[in-house]
């Protein structure tokens, strides 16, 4: 019995680390750049496929490929914001109209990225085996790669938090999040900051894609499910809050693992029930004001 509880807890934490990491990126993009990025999961998928490709064809260690997927996807995100979204922001009559049009543009982006991936890598499910050795912790068993994933996910969240709290760029991003017009008047180059911000969000997605590919199979159509989970987590933790996403991710992971233990098919249903109840009762999230 005790071992079962431990099993469920550990599985929940391992899952929750990934959830937190994928949510942090989306939270940045919505909280600061005001883009509800429906294509977030596609960046996760790209990260996963970059890692799969370099591991399968060149034998490069998946952990080393973090140094590849992160920067590549950052550049894609930065470029997309500076071209597409900044134009949408300019032509939108109101901030609300921008939220609508940028979300729909992301839906178009989802189609483009997903189908490019199908053309490049094919539609089949792919996977590789890395560190699939079982670890035994006080009777609970899990694969070593999941622990690596959780470790990196936590490190990335913390580094990112410190970056926002202590660097000049981080302060500019936080200022833009609070009031982009005022931050612009104070001399912050808003367009550049928002593009960086969108780039960082995409980079977090790419990094989590790499980590996900170590323990799960990858497929060009895998994106939307991760996008939806990230969305649920940021609503749980409060839109735009990084610490909220981290805690929200861990909570959702635990809920997922408990529900899966009771009735395996119902974890997604439980996520959506929580999501919708939360939207109705407290749309600012568990920790929001």
């Amino acid at each position, binding site marked *: 019995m005790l071992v079962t509880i431990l099993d469920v807890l550990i599985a929940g934490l391992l899952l929750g680390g990934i959830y937190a990491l994928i949510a942090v990126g989306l939270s940045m993009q919505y909280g600061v750049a005001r883009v*509800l990025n429906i294509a977030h999961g596609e960046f996760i998928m790209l990260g996963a496929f970059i890692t799969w490709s370099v591991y399968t064809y060149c034998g490069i260690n998946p952990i080393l490929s973090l140094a590849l997927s992160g920067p590549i996807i950052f550049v894609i995100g930065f470029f997309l914001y500076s071209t597409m979204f900044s134009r949408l922001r300019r032509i939108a009559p109101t901030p609300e109209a921008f939220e609508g049009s940028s*979300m*729909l543009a992301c839906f178009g982006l989802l189609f483009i990225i997903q*189908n490019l991936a199908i053309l490049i890598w094919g539609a089949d499910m792919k996977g590789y085996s890395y560190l699939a050795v079982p670890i035994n912790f006080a009777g609970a068993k899990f694969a070593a790669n999941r622990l690596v994933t959780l470790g990196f996910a936590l490190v990335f969240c913390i580094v990112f938090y410190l970056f926002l709290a202590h660097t000049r760029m981080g302060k500019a991003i936080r200022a833009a999040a609070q009031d982009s017009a005022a931050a612009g008047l104070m001399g912050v180059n808003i367009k550049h900051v928002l593009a960086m911000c969108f780039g960082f969000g995409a980079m977090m997605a790419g990094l989590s894609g790499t980590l996900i590919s170590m323990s799960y199979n990858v497929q060009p159509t895998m994106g939307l499910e991760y996008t939806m989970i990230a969305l649920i987590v940021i609503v749980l933790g409060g839109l735009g809050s990084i610490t909220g996403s981290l805690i929200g991710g861990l909570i959702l992971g635990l809920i997922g693992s408990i529900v899966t233990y009771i009735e395996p098919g119902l974890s997604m249903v439980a996520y959506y029930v929580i*999501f919708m109840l939360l939207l*109705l009762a407290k749309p600012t999230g568990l920790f929001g004001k």
Partner: protein
Amino acid sequence: MVWLLVMLALALSPLYASRYTIILLSTILMNVVLSVSWAMFSGPTKYISLAPAAFFGVGIYSAAVLGTKLPMPAVIVIGGLASFCLAILVGALTLRLRGIYFVMFTFGLVELLMHFLLWFELNINDTTGRVVPSLDNSTVFYLMLLIFAVLMLTVYFIKDSKFGMALQSIGENEEAASHIGINVTALKIVTFGVSAFFMGLAGAIMATRWTYIDPKIAFNPVISFMPVLMAIFGGMGRPYGPIIGAAIFSYLGEFLITKFPYYYMLIFGIILVVAILYMPGGLVGLAQNIRNQYLRRRHAHS
């Protein structure tokens, strides 16, 4: 007058058009119905609803569950009514939600229904999909045409009525609207329900054409986005914008899928992004701009 001619040409088309054309026309009409009924609520109120797939899916499942037990017209109406009831419930729940929260809630609804049905069918009913009794092509076409006609009459009567004006005022300033004595709540819920009713009808009819359905087909999230994109592509500024958008979009989709089966979705995505970036007013807005520029130039020359 133009309307009457178009309707007449459509109504007589099974007499002279090929089987393929009739099937294509049914698909186009389905998209037009979805996009016009989406725009009926979301156009004036500016609440972006991503629930069409939920209402469409409820219609589909009504046809799948009742298709063998009741005559088809009754099944279709029940499909519409079931969607209507769901929309009234959702509308009443989401009164306080605005902007992006409303968008997320409506999209969550689609996913919730799909995942719940997946689990329910597999664990309780011990099946994965269901078979729907099929109708012949021209019956499907005439039913779609009938719904389209009723929908257009509804839209026409709402537009210039007191009801339509009140709806418009919600989109412009909801608080001001409630202060001048408009019952904002009731108005929003009823319109949401009526728009869902038509989506449910369309779903129940289309189910007969697909014959085999499962939760992933019935509650496909893409169906939620399509009406929105088609309406915006056509232009929300005019009532015929969503019709033109949906008609061109579905024809384009059909054309691309036969000519470029592998690049179809990719090209589709590119067209979408370009349309959102460069035609914020949709095709209707674009046509107006070109016309204005032409008039201005002629004015300058004379």
